């Protein structure tokens, strides 16, 4: 009987050791990613160490060339009144903005919520008629287009992540960018931006124009 008891105890200890070693087990080193992961141009697919197709995170896709035609209006479905914007730190008027249903616009919308976000812009170009700021996010260039003329209220995302808000009609602008949205009402827009810029000249951070942005899309 003693022998049997010892045998069971030994078995129990082995089970415990196995259990615990399982708890702290270390995964085998998967090595280093192949060249086609670093530079996707070398291969059509990103392949994970176990051979699965990985999530597409490519922002430098060659497919952008295929969609470089057409106007902003051709971008497909529009998300009506997706965001609401107040121009200037003390701005009170709410401007409704429609957003295009493309990846770039959706990525931007992901950053917003029902609470107003104070968004500073550090570039004000009166001559070119836009206010710009680099934005965070991993953006595709799939919906990039060549656009000849831009209108006041248009929002475009440029390669490198610069978001431009045109507050003036600019004929012959000839830009290559992804249209992300447009103000639904442009009456008084130019003046509102100019006024916000003027009132912000002594900003301690050096911000040109502030925008309060609220996501209104459900």
């Amino acid at each position: 009987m003693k022998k049997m008891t010892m045998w069971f105890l030994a078995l129990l200890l082995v089970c415990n050791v196995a259990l615990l070693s399982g708890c702290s087990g270390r995964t085998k080193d998967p090595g280093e990613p192949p060249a086609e992961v670093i530079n996707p141009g070398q291969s059509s697919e990103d392949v994970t160490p176990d051979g699965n197709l990985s999530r597409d995170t490519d922002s430098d896709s060659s497919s952008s060339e295929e969609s470089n035609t057409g106007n902003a209006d051709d971008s497909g479905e529009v998300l009506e009144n997706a965001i609401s914007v107040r121009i200037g730190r003390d701005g009170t008027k709410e401007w409704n903005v429609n957003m295009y249903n493309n990846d770039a616009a959706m990525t931007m919308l992901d950053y917003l919520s029902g609470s107003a976000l104070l968004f500073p812009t550090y570039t004000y170009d009166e001559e070119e008629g836009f206010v710009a700021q680099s934005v965070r996010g991993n953006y595709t260039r799939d919906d990039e287009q060549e656009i000849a003329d831009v209108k006041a209220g248009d929002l475009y995302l440029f390669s490198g992540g610069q978001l431009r808000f045109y507050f003036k009609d600019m004929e012959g602008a000839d830009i290559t960018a992804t249209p992300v949205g447009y103000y639904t009402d442009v009456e008084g827009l130019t003046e509102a931006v100019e006024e916000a810029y003027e009132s912000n000249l002594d900003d301690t951070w050096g911000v040109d124009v502030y925008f309060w942005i609220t996501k209104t899309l459900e």
Partner: protein
Amino acid sequence: MEMRKILLLAAVKRQKGSIIGIFLLVWILSACIFSSLTLYISGNDYVKGEMERLGFGELTIWVNGEESSLTEQIQALPDVEKAYAQPLVFSGYEINGGYSDNEGQLLVYDGTVDYRFLNADGIRTAAPKITEGTVYISPAMQASFDVTVGDTIRFELSRKDGTYSLTVAGYFADGFMGSSMIDMKSFLINASDYENMLDILRNTKETDVLGKCGAMVHVFQREDSALTAVEFYREIQENTDISLHTEFSYRRESILSYMLLLQNILCGFLIAFSVVLTAVCLIVTSHSLSSLIEQDKKDMAALKTIGLPGKQIRDTYLTAYGGVMLAGLIAGLFCSGMTARMLAQGLVSSTGMLVVVRLPIVPVLLLLGLFLLLFAAFLMLRTRRILKTAPVQVFQENPGGKIVSSKLRKAFLEWDIAMREIQSRRRNYMALCLASFVLAVFLSVVGRMGSWLGPNGEGLMNAFSVADHDLGVQPFNRDVPMDEIERVINWYSPIRETYELAMESVTVNGQEYEANVLNDTEWFHLMEGELPDGEGILITETVANGLELGIGDTVLVAANGRAQEYAVSGIYQCANGMGSNIGMSMEGYSRIGDITGFIWCYHYVLEDGTVRDYAMNYLQEHYRGIDVHTNSWSGLNGIVAMMHGLIGVIYVVAAVFILVSVALSTGKLLAYEAGTMAVYKSMGLSTKKLRRSFAFRFLIVSVAGTVVGLLAAAFVADGAVGMIFKNFGIGQFHSGFSILGIILPLLGLPAMFFFFAWAFSAKLKQVSIINLIHENDV
């Protein structure tokens, strides 16, 4: 007197197995509870003493720059008893390819502060003379960097040729930064190395400088000062220039609780285990006592008939069992000092110092008295029957248990016999059922804690970090190819979730804190209240206590020269900066800070978090301009290994408990059933079948107890563990389905009851028809 002695010896002889079993149980219980009490009190006293000895102020403020005038300004305040500065150099460092998450603080060792030096095991050694080019470190760093004597630590003071290498020459007990729970670590160096470092810092262009000089300013409050801790800190901030130089500041209590956090968690674990052990001990004792009384009933009746009072008979049993329990308690108490020392030794790599263990006499005596009272009351209660038993009643009783009439089917003979015996001796089996219930609840709770902890300590990491993640990447310039980096991470493991975190310095009602800003507030570990919108903030319990704030209160948060009012929307959990932090939404922070800068760290939750270290190493080696980290901190591996080890020990001790419980029960049941078994054997049932049938009874009752226990654990475990963890700074505990918490107890407990019962039923081999004849003779 002679009669009692004979009775006592007879009782001890008959219940030898039970008595040894009870002794072992009480011994383990006693060693467990007294060692945890000893460790808890000794650890607190020792670390507190070390902090005082090393001169940690009631409040210590870490400042940057060479600002000697600060101490004078503080010293001049009416509520300040004294203030003094300990100069240091802040610097990031690299050891064996691993980079520090936080800056280390390099201090000159010149003997003015009485640091204690240790060997690798934490044993005190003589104070050395630190030579040029060498450094002494906390032993807690062994676990985090796999560093040992002779390794090189590279301190990064400037971007251009500013790496200063020092060789590890030994270890020292760092009384207030040594714990692996504290990311920042102290290093003791030679005075000329310190001067060389200062030269590098002074001669490096501002754009290239990485390290900085500074000091720890230890401040002591006057005894007669009427200011609260918050008011005292505010007085210092408002009346001196310290806020312009403050890196961070901590009160003595905060540092003490972080130094002792792991030790207290360990003690909490052991105390919880002791509570369960006490319950199991009482169940087993009750079981053994009732069995003995049952066996001795006829002798007792005879003794009563010849005039021996019931009280004297009872005293015999009380002496036997009380004596064994007392012996167990004393034996455990003697072992507790050694056990506590072993635990303290095991904690060296976590606390960074070897706690000197001293038995706390008064608390130990109080606890011993409490246990003696409990055991005495329990034994008195359980032996009441002896006084009530009348001789005539005993002779008329049927000793064979409740008569049960049930069909015995040939195909299920072993099973049916088992069921019949369970029904017949329901009370005896109820005790086993109860034991399996208690063990199931406990093992389920322990298993759930093990699963929550995870193989790499994910549970602990998530509880202490701002938000759950596997990998964090913070780019510092626009040239960093984040899309490429994401492809690399994705190659190691598909990315399940992504969000962004910024950690910015702010003041709340004038006091400096770190603001954890998330673009998606759902990731905060909310404990109470609501997630913050653009006009709300979350605070930790540390901040709530420190600033005496509650949900709904309005606070003034300021940063970058701007201030806004926010409402406290909730309490959240994050032990970063030892709890001195607040949580904000991106919208909320945008009102006082610029959200467009390179302040954001991209956090990734991976499908397979175990590859995170490989991904981190690859990114660190191949990309510049980024900071990569995993959701971990120095010394976490040591803590996790110890917790896993403790869980393993608990499983082994639980198995020993089952072994003892089953041994006691089988002895008693086999004694009862010797006659019945002989009858079964005479009817042609083999010993093998009888043993299986016997083991089946244990299986049936343990399955019932385990299932009910697991159901009970499912309802109460999270809440109960959460309550315990809350005392140790972990505010949230959620365990879902887990193999350790559900499957293991469900299969393991009944299996062990079955196998042990089967093993102990080997006695049945000796049962024969002779027993039957003997039974009938009695």
